């Protein structure tokens, strides 16, 4: 079985976000990580590899620096890493990104494609389903459990108040939730091997069946009209009292606001 996993290198938003004086994001000042949902997708692929035997190829699109997440993935157990990087791919929205990744994946054999549900920088959850549409294969989003049965995949797909057990014929694309699993750590031997491993680097010329008009900033239907730091309502009062006084304080506020 051949599995392709799409991963993204993202700023670690948990550590707070840093801005340049002009209001744009200061990416250089922020730590980067492998996107958590993607890491869960990679772990799911590695577990299928452990269970059924599979070749796991990790694909990322980004700046040359994004090679770091490919090495991390290989240190965890992925077999191959492919970096898709090219100046003309920059500024892509989800349409152009999914076109790019689909164009790269068309070079590969695959039974399964696994992506994270969403990246913590964009939070769109769009690229996975859009890749599946470009490739003409079924998608199962929000996977919380994955099994293989013959030429099909059986997935528990999460909704707000239920889950569906779905069966899809492979090839199929699955988007993974961070809740799916607890990703494994890199092994020392894996880190050593990954450091020396060959990373395949592809540019525009390697993308199959994609028009220039669908790539990068120019190929992006959505355009940013305005971006700004979020204005939040400020902090209110803060008190540090003993428990009894704290209770009286809350009761008083609930009365003032006519809650009770």
């Amino acid at each position: 079985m051949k599995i392709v996993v799409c991963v993204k290198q993202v700023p670690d938003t948990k550590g707070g976000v840093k801005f340049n004086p002009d209001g744009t994001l200061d990416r250089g000042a922020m730590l980067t990580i492998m996107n958590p949902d993607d890491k869960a997708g990679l772990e799911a692929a590695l577990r299928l590899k452990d269970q059924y035997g599979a070749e796991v190829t990790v694909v990322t699109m980004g700046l040359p620096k994004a090679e770091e997440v490919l090495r991390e993935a290989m240190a965890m157990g992925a077999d191959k890493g492919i970096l898709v990087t090219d100046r003309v791919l920059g500024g892509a929205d989800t349409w152009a990104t999914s076109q790019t990744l689909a164009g790269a994946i068309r070079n590969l054999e695959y039974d399964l494609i696994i992506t994270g549900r969403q990246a913590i920088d964009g939070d769109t959850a769009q690229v996975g389903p859009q890749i599946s549409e470009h490739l003409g294969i079924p998608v199962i989003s929000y996977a919380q459990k994955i099994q293989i049965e013959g030429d099909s995949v059986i997935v528990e797909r999460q909704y707000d108040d239920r889950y569906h057990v779905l069966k899809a014929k492979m090839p199929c694309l699955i988007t993974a939730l961070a809740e799916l699993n607890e990703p494994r750590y890199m092994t020392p031997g894996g880190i050593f091997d990954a450091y020396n491993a060959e990373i395949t680097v592809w540019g525009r010329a390697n993308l199959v069946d994609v028009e220039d008009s669908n790539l990068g900033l120019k190929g992006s239907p959505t355009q940013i009209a305005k971006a700004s730091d979020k204005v939040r309502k400020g902090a209110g009062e803060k008190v540090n009292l003993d428990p009894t006084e704290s209770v009286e304080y809350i009761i008083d506020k609930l009365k003032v606001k006519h809650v009770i």
Partner: protein
Amino acid sequence: MNIQDYKGVFVFAQQVDNVLSGIALELVGKGKDLAKDLGTEVTAVLVGSDVKGLADELAEYGADKVIVVDDPELKEYRTEPYAHALASVINEFKPEIFLVGATAIGRDLGPRVSARIHTGLTADCTQLDIGDFPINPIPGKEQLHNQLLMTRPAFGGNTIATIACPDFRPQMATVRPGVMQKASREAGRKAVVVEFNPGFTPNDKYVEILEVVKAVSDVADIMDAKILVSGGRGVGSPENFKILEDLAEVIGGTVSCSRAVVDAGWKPKDLQVGQTGKTVRPNVYFAIGISGAIQHVAGMEEADIIIAINKDDTAPIFDVADYGIVGDLNKIVPALTERLKAELAAK
């Protein structure tokens, strides 16, 4: 594509088990506002099996027209037949705006449809306006009018961005549930109902549903609650949520929680507030033992009154709380419950 051919505001009227989801009515309400600004109408697109009866409800909440796509293949949500339904409606009726709820269904369906018809899609919008693009005139660039300006949080809620889709139609957005207001219901109001079936022929893209497992949940929807008593990892254990449940019962509230609590397996996902959970705007939000990660705050900062109890006086939740109490929740919460009991009994 001739952009002038695209007219009207369409919204996807999500239903589950033949009951309209709250987001359907919220989108009709918002769609009506946008349609008014554009001098056009709002059309609800109802997709399912045996769902025609829901058209009247959509009309009473403001839909001018309802397009019904009714087919047995559409009984339970599946990506492919639903995407085929919406893409066919868009190709046939050519709307200028198409809104979908940012639900577990809509966030799967929206991208598939936008990729099929080649247009832009803006995710998880929290504000929609009609305006100019570029917002301010730029020399040498035509300023387009009557564009949909879609505003959404990004970078974990740290920034907000406003997005336009000037060259493609329809302008598509998924909209976060609980943010837009539904219009007040006008009993007896009618809409034009159009039935449309593009034909559904199963192929390899149709996944098979082996089983539908409904979460056994008798808890109220946290998005409807007027008072939420919300707990985080600081509550310490699933058992200790009892003190929150007692408080909720006395004050007439509902218990909710942070993502950490769901990840730890203490509470089910449908009680989770935040960016990957639900957006809530109750009258009162108690944040108990919740540190206030930005992803959590994004889901509750619109509450009228936020009361935070946390032993760590540097917790970021205090930056958004109206009333912050630094202290031990294990002492304060039970005492508050008892005090409230006495207070309410005296009334």
